[in-house]
């Protein structure tokens, strides 16, 4: 991990980020176009979602393919609680806690599985949940008219903005903390990490809890956004896959990777959907994904670093490097 950062560059970093956040906060005031605001809202939600996966998949190296389960739990819990009258922030919190609670339940058995079995096992688990909820609650939950009449994108946008900033901040904290160092050591070599005193079991679980909490939060924001939501869809594996490909293509294990990836993802999705049948953006990202896995493990961020070079002006202020 590159800690060669001078305080000057850190300051530069924070001010640039601050400016971007302020600009983003101004967007709803600058434009009334709902499609643009929706676009941004979704990008921000994907930032949170992919960052949440980034924590467990990118920093800890555990490829959890059951991520959608936690998104779904968070979404479903938050939505029903909110529809029954609970104030939104509490409902969101409850959703995230529910997701984290489920993570605790399955965390112990799940992490006993090694390598490929963990990946497949999590995928299967999420699929089971999807089938159960799809069958249990086949009908979409539609917002009642009292809420539909006052539906406004703006609060949803700001909610996603705040949560996205928090998510990025959380990942930033991880990358710079002893906790994060432990996670990355687990990613590199579990046995070596264990041997050097890292309680790998505890760290994995903590990362998992953090990751699922954040995922549940993302789910909650989606539940708040969607005027109609079919429960089965909330558990669809698509949410996992989107998070994974965004994180990878952007640069897994980096702070900005998922951010860049999300922007790119929604951009390509919107552009391509104008001319080609829906879902094509997945094709593009699938190809990019394979290219990243085979040739560009650092994703777009890694590519950027290669282009700008290790000793360019940006070098000293690099946020983190994935090695």
């Amino acid at each position: 991990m590159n800690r060669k950062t001078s305080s000057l560059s850190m300051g530069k970093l924070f001010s640039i980020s601050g400016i971007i956040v302020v600009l983003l906060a101004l967007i709803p005031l600058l434009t009334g176009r709902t499609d643009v605001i929706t676009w941004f809202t979704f990008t921000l939600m994907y930032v949170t979602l992919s960052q949440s996966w980034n924590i467990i998949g990118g920093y800890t190296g555990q490829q959890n393919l059951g991520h959608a389960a936690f998104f779904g739990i968070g979404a479903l819990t938050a939505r029903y609680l909110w529809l029954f009258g609970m104030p939104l922030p509490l409902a969101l919190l409850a959703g995230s806690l529910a997701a984290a609670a489920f993570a605790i339940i399955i965390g112990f058995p799940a992490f006993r599985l090694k390598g490929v079995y963990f990946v497949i096992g999590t995928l299967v688990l999420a699929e089971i949940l999807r089938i159960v909820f799809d069958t249990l609650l086949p009908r979409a939950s539609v917002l009642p008219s009292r809420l539909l009449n006052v539906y406004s994108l703006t609060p949803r946008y700001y909610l996603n903005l705040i949560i996205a900033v928090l998510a990025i901040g959380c990942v930033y904290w991880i990358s710079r903390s002893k906790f994060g160092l432990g996670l990355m050591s687990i990613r590199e070599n579990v046995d070596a990490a264990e041997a050097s005193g890292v309680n790998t079991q505890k760290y994995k679980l903590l990362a998992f809890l953090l990751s699922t909490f954040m995922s549940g939060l993302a789910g909650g924001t989606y539940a708040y956004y969607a005027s109609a939501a079919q429960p089965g869809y909330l558990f669809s594996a698509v949410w996992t896959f989107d998070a994974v490909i965004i994180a990878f293509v952007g640069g897994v294990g980096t702070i900005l990777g998922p951010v860049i990836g999300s922007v790119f993802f929604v951009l390509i999705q919107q552009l391509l959907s104008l001319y080609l049948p829906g879902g094509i953006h997945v094709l593009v990202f699938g190809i990019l994904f394979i290219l990243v896995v085979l040739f560009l493990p650092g994703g777009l961020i890694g590519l950027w670093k290669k282009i700008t070079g290790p000793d360019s002006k940006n070098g000293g202020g690099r946020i983190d490097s994935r090695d």
Partner: protein
Amino acid sequence: MITQLVAQTVVNGINVGALYGLAAVGLSLTFGVMKILNIAHGEFLMVGGYLAFWLLTLRGIDPFVSVPLVAVAVFLLGMICYRFLFAGIARFEEETKVKNSLLVGFGLFLIVPQIARLLWTADVRSITPKYSGESFPLLNVRIAYVPLGGLLIAVVVILALHLLLTKTYFGKSVRGTSENWKAAKLMGINVDRTYLFTFAIGTGLAGVSGVLVGLTQALTPDIGMEWTLKALIVVVLAGIGSVGGAFFAGIILGVVEAAGAIFMGPYAVALGLVIFLLILMLRPQGLFGNE
């Protein structure tokens, strides 16, 4: 009446189960020999099904006749995929290899259904030759021709695979490489080429399964992952490395699901997945495995 229901359920279960077994055998082979879990296995199945569909629709070729054609076509497709996507990974040591091959397979899983959708639209297809709905009675049950044919094909193919692996030089080299690739190299076996052909055989088998799936169920561009999961359940149920066991495990799964459908209705689909998790947790070596 109850016995008829039970018997018919068992028959249906066996038919579907043979399909599961065939779909799983290819995956088991690849996973057992190369320790690569091809998560895009179902995509090759889907492509095989569509190939048979178009061979019937455009050229009138009977699906049972097109089985060898599809097998060869998907075999070649698998060779190309392996050569360009997986071959580089096969050299890494185990953990990286497994992780990266999963990711590459995942990438294929993203791409192939989209290409299929572009080429063939998302319409649901079914391979329906003229004799599709016909059946004959046997004791208390109805035996439909098409699923019976599917069962026969599955049995024949798996027997052929068994013979290949036990009686031919190539098959023995595959088994040897699977056990100890270093020793295989020292015997003059070209391990890279062995992996290439093993992978291609695995995908070819998936393609053949696809034809049967198209005959007995429906084809859409998205069935890939569903079938990969089914194949996975069977592989884990049978135990890694047990290629013959995969067939029997498939039958077991088929019958269990058919029985489950009666009692659990729409939840029965999750039954196989639950079994999968239980096996992973409680008996990871599967029913017939030896690791």
